[in-house]
């Protein structure tokens, strides 16, 4: 089993590769570290811009859901 240093290093690796990070039960110190890492991951220019296809896909899902609730 990894220690906190190893878990956080793996978490950062995932963020840098823009992969879904592995999940683990984090200690309070680790939680602080992963939240800081998440914030820093948005610094690369363009990193936080949504994909256009994603935006369209969600809108289509909302239309279906809203249509079901208010037919």
């Amino acid at each position, binding site marked *: 089993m990894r220690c*906190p*240093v*190893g878990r*956080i*290093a793996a978490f*950062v*690796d*995932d*963020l*840098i590769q*823009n*992969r*879904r*990070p592995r*999940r*683990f*039960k*984090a200690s*309070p*110190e*680790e*939680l*602080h*570290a*992963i*939240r*800081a*890492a*998440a*914030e*820093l*991951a*948005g*610094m*690369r*220019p363009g*990193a*936080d*811009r*949504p*994909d256009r296809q*994603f*935006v369209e896909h*969600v*809108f289509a*899902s*909302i*239309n279906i*859901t*809203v249509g*079901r*609730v*208010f037919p």
Partner: protein
Amino acid sequence: MVEGALYTDWESIYQDNVVKVYRLMFSRVGNRPDAEDLTSEVFVKSLPNLSLPSPVVQVNSYINVAIRSVLADHWRRHYGAPLVDVEVDNIGQALEVSPATEGTGRAGRILALLPDRSRAILELRFLRGCSIKEAAREMGVTPGNAKIIQYRALRLAAEIGQGMLS
């Protein structure tokens, strides 16, 4: 925003807010797959419960509540975070997030306040995308040491970030 402005259709609500919500989610989770899932959850959860027309202020507040709830659930389910420990202090400003650019914004200010070695490892990793081995080589340390420096730097960054909130 015009005082008393109303939203009269779902599309306007979505188009006005989707990018802001996505960017806020990205700033909290740091990766595209999770940011997409959480953004989708906010809209699919919150929009169908709104009645229209609704004041813009009310819709924004509704979306902010949904963001808080979705994020809290994410941290609890995947990392075991207690609900009280979820950072939501800035979520109220969710719809006013400014664009992230290298070296500017809150993250840039946090980096600027770090000691040299801490800043160096985080810049190598997050801005230049170096692997831990590459970052270690650049800094003249072993990969094991680089991981320790990185862990300490992130904890320090978290403390600085907390200080900015309070």
